[in-house]
């Protein structure tokens, strides 16, 4: 395998004027022209579904989905968005301490998440709610840490979905190590690590690129470039398109339209298959947009303009698939109505479960700190229990 990736070669062709597939909309091109030159040169995106809902072909990433599969992807995106909206609302109502919305990134997450096999392993950051959905993780499990009842809260091996990682980029190394283990075991599963454009600046992400390349680890790096790291725009992270960094580490990089669920599915599937064949890592840059705030704690109006968001709204991942399905007759009105009902039921369920989440027992502070026990933890647990008991007035209540 040569270092130069298919996508990188295509970019060269593009720069010489050959435009092969639909590129991002004019408004975005105009917008980014004010940004640093290297970032502004929007390289070709792998795209299978235009923002207008028109199906286009790509020579390297063809995909053939049945109407049922298309409806499945659409349903995943709608329900993920509904779950996310409910969580945002719950945060506004004081039921959650914080929420990191995925709004706008449904296609990147569902497309990549649905490319995975059950025996693949996922290392998410803290915004991969729709990937968790694809893994069969109970979505209410994701809310425990945001409600403040735990700091993770699930067994990662149940769904091969690791705990959310808040420190940026740390999990890319865990993914790489896990993938090294997969290779040692002679298994043919793959590993996927999610991170964002901000995390791409972290040393750990670069170290994970080095390790995965050196050991030829079966890992796919899925970077959701949502353009903003809290208030810092992408040009504060890089002077080259992120996917091009892969070439410097010796593996392919590809930029995909992150708002195109079909393209995300096709590109991720291809990268996972490559990993399974023992051909090593791939970096996928899903070019997308974070429609909401970084988390419910920040205010995007302070750092970005309304026009930018509006331009991206025109590229909405859910609407474009809906348009395509309607135009092609892949779904009827009953499907959309039923999904609406299901969506409302999900929101209601999430609300009820969150409100009923119990505050953990006080003694849980001392649980699971060590597997083999620790004298100091035992001592402090006993002291704390005695202190608590002193308030309870003989446990008469």
């Amino acid at each position, binding site marked *: 395998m040569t270092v130069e990736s298919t996508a990188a070669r295509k970019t060269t062709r593009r720069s010489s004027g050959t435009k092969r597939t639909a590129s991002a909309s004019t408004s975005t091109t105009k917008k980014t022209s004010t940004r640093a030159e290297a970032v502004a040169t929007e390289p070709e995106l792998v795209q299978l579904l235009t923002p207008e809902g028109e199906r286009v072909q790509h020579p390297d990433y063809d995909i053939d989905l049945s109407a049922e599969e298309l409806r499945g992807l659409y349903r995943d995106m709608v329900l993920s968005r509904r779950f996310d909206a409910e969580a945002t609302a719950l945060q506004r109502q004081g039921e959650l301490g914080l929420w990191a919305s995925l709004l706008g990134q449904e296609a990147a997450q569902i497309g990549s998440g649905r490319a995975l096999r059950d025996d693949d392993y996922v*290392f998410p950051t803290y915004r991969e709610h729709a990937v968790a959905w694809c893994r069969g993780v109970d979505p209410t499990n994701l809310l425990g840490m945001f409600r403040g009842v*735990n*700091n*993770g*809260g*699930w*067994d*990662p*091996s149940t769904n091969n979905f*690791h*705990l959310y*990682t808040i*420190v940026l980029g*740390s999990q*890319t*190394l*865990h*993914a*790489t*190590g*896990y*993938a*090294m*283990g*997969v290779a*040692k*075991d002679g298994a043919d599963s793959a590993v996927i690590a999610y991170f964002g454009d901000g995390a791409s600046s972290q*040393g*750990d992400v670069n*170290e*994970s690129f*080095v*390790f995965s390349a*050196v050991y030829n680890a079966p890992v796919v790096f899925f970077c959701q470039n949502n353009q903003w790291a809290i208030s810092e725009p992408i040009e504060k992270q890089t002077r080259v398109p992120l996917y091009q960094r892969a070439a410097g580490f010796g593996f392919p990089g590809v930029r995909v339209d992150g708002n195109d669920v079909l393209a995300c599915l096709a590109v991720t599937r291809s990268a996972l298959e490559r990993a399974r064949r023992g051909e090593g890592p791939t970096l996928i840059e899903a070019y997308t947009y974070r429609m909401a705030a970084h988390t419910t704690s920040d205010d995007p109006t302070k750092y970005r303009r309304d026009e930018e968001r509006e331009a991206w709204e025109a590229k909405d991942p859910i609407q474009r698939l809906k348009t395509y399905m309607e135009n092609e007759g892949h779904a009827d009105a009953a499907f959309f109505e039923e999904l609406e009902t299901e969506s409302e039921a999900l929101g209601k369920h999430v609300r009820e479960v969150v409100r009923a989440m119990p505050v953990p027992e006080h003694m849980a502070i001392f*649980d*699971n*700190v*060590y*597997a*083999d026990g*620790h*004298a*100091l*933890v035992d001592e402090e647990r006993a002291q704390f229990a005695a202190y608590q008991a002193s308030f309870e007035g003989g446990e008469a209540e």
Partner: protein
Amino acid sequence: MAVQKLPLAKALNESLRKALETDPKVLIMGLDVGKLGGVFRITDGLQKDFGEDRVIDTPLAESGIVGTAIGLALRGYRPVVEIQFDGFVFPAYDQIVSQLAKMRARSLGTVKMPIVIRIPYGGGIGAVEHHSESPESLFAHVAGLKVVTPANSNDAYWMLQQAIQSDDPVIFFEPKRRYWDKGEVDTEAIPGELHKARVAREGTDLTLVGYGPMVKTCLEVAEAAAEEGKSIEVVDLRSISPLDFDTVQASVEKTGRLVVVHEAPVFFGSGAEIAARITERCFYHLEAPVLRVGGYHAPYPPARLEEEYLPGLDRVLDAVDRSLAY
């Protein structure tokens, strides 16, 4: 042959060999651990005998070494990671403190992190900067980690295997200035608990607590003091987290005096923790305040000054005299 006389470094090497033989999930990882056998030769010959899949030369990236070890542990492996020197652990500090230490609690006890991080530490070998530090308190302060350090060959052999068998992450500090000291290793005697302190020398007038490289110094102090008619008990902590306060307390209740010795800076160091706890536990047994001897609140000095910085015979004896003068 059950009992052999081995340098501490060779005892560690034999210990790793035993661990690799016993459990196919044990891996050795680090910079230069393969062909070179480690800069201190602790892994000498292991790659030759166990292969590159078990004894893994890594890229030069400490965070990457620990971060990938976490992933391997999640996959069911038991990585033993070598950080080449004490002062080089800090690029990996985030992975150790923010990720490794917390993984079990965050998963509600569903994952294990059986990772050992071996760190040759401490001064006294005339090294350049970043090669002589004693950062044990920085790790002991973090819940979720265990911190141990052997002081002799037998402990080196057994404690390392016990650390590898533990399902918790263990920071294994190796006293590099004692690597070449020979001691008896009994490869068949059933060892004591990993986290239990050891009374290295009995005495009645004062307790000296040390660990790792300072145990030898403390024993020399006790020997010198004995010539002046003073009976000093020496406690080798062996484990810094958890710390066996019971053994220290029992000794102090007997002697009434305590001096803690370590190479790390005294300020916010392990000696402070020991002084505070022992004062709480046996205030009425103490004939003198607990004294500490250690490094200064200054960067580890250039090698030509390290003998002034490190606790040596005279500085510890001075503290012993001050304690006995109360």
